[in-house]
């Protein structure tokens, strides 16, 4: 619960977008959620979670779409999770029992409510789906902070595969910088598309350029070398892949 101040600004924005009924409903729902004892302060439950009736604020969490409109539901749900100071166990349960829209809200909330990697399983679950809205939410700030290099690269590649704009990928430039393995994967993907006579996603070029940032000097030198003797490229050197993939990536322009 370290980064909740950001939610204050979100609340102001959302309130100005809602009509009177929805705004009143939201205020009441947030008050109900805030009055909920924090999970750490609550007495240990006497019954298992499946037998206990859901707290009222969780009912409000489910109703947010029909009360605030689908276009505002994500924000309303995010605010409710923040007001209730939902812990990892609660977030996990709400995700597992949630609709796609509710799951998306939980994924957005992770960066605000979970300081460590303990909720990473939810991000990983979302990345296994083919629902583009879940994939987009999973590559947000929480995923950027906690996904390991392999999982993060596959997440970026999945965005390219499923048409999720890489604008959704938090900290993209920072994590991509100098990532030769990501560059190799992008290059291979570009070649695969080109071989099949299919266009290469425009975002691929963008990410590829970002991987080059730190190794720019070396890459330039390598490109010069390639121009002189293209048949002798050492294929195992990842730093040259960006240049090669970049040419493979724009066959439709030639």
């Amino acid at each position, binding site marked *: 619960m370290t980064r909740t101040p950001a939610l204050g600004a979100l609340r102001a924005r959302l309130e100005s977008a809602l009509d009177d009924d929805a705004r009143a409903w939201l205020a009441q729902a947030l008050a109900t959620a805030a009055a909920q004892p924090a999970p750490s302060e609550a007495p240990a439950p006497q019954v298992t979670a499946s037998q206990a009736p859901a707290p009222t604020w969780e*009912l409000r969490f*489910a109703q947010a779409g029909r009360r605030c409109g*689908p276009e505002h539901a994500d924000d309303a749900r995010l605010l409710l999770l923040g007001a209730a100071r939902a812990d990892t166990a609660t977030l996990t349960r709400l995700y597992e029992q949630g*609709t*796609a829209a509710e799951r998306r809200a939980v994924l957005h909330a992770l960066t605000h409510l979970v300081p460590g990697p303990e909720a990473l399983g939810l991000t990983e679950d979302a990345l296994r789906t*083919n*629902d583009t809205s879940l994939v987009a939410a999973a590559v947000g700030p929480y995923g950027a902070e906690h996904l390991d290099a392999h999982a993060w690269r596959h997440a970026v590649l999945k965005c390219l595969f499923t*048409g*999720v704009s890489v604008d959704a990928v938090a900290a993209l430039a920072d994590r991509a910088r100098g990532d030769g393995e990501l560059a190799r994967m992008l290059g291979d993907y570009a070649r695969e598309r080109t071989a099949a006579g299919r266009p290469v*996603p425009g975002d691929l070029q963008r990410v590829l350029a970002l991987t080059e940032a730190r190794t720019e000097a070396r890459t330039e030198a390598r490109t010069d070398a390639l121009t002189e003797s293209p048949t002798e490229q050492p294929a195992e050197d990842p730093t040259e892949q960006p240049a090669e993939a970049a040419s493979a990536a724009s066959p439709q322009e030639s």
Partner: protein
Amino acid sequence: MRLFDPHIHMTSRTTDDYEAMYAAGVRAVVEPAFWLGQPRTSPSSFYDYFDSLLGWEPFRAAQYGIAHHCTIALNPKEANDPRCTPVLDQLPRYLVKDNVVAVGEIGYDSMTPAEDTALSAQLQMAADAELPALVHTPHRDKLAGLHRTIDVVRESALPLDRVLLDHLNETTVKDAKDAGCWLGFSVYPDTKMDEDRMVAILRSYGPEKVLVNSAADWGRSDPLKTRKVADAMLKAGFDDDMVDLVMWRNPVAFYELSGRLHLEVEGTDATHEGNSILRGGE
């Protein structure tokens, strides 16, 4: 022409069907939870199915410009299997979801005591969740089943005018109408009801509270039956407004009883290069 299929099991259909439905004018569907052909043996497979009706299936539909809602219930056939009945305890947490616009399909299959229990319990849940109910009428012993269904609804907390009685035909429509229920007709290639009989029923009983659906599923069925009935209505002399009433406004009015119907669809470009359905798995 805008069409609303108020009862179709899209989980069992392909993206080709979604595409053809959109081309035929279908802009909204309701998918009732039902039997999958292969019996389930544990509550968990129901929960995965319900989650799919609230997650993946509306996503698929949206890719083709079609608004997807669902109804949730323990179906009468599987209500007879004690391995499945614990599902009833978990239904309330599903019935609060935004995309759930009714309790259903409930009703009778073989008219057993277990089906009595499940039907009564779920009618009460519908009343508690402020939802209408989609109640199907049995295929066997249909008229007796209809009377028993109406009796059980009368004894329940759910008013008859919040109930859609489905799979009606010439022998059951009158009693269902007299009871004040919404009237559902499933138009199938061979069984249940066909386009011309549907038109004859509309002539005899009028269009008020009548809903027409394809009930298309994994069996021999046709997801374009709503369009075919609309065409048959026009050919028989019904005007555009009457077709719109039966094929759009009536289903909207019934499911609006939930207060949860949202008919705008986001992300409708089925030909979008990056579409994750077009791509399939990776």
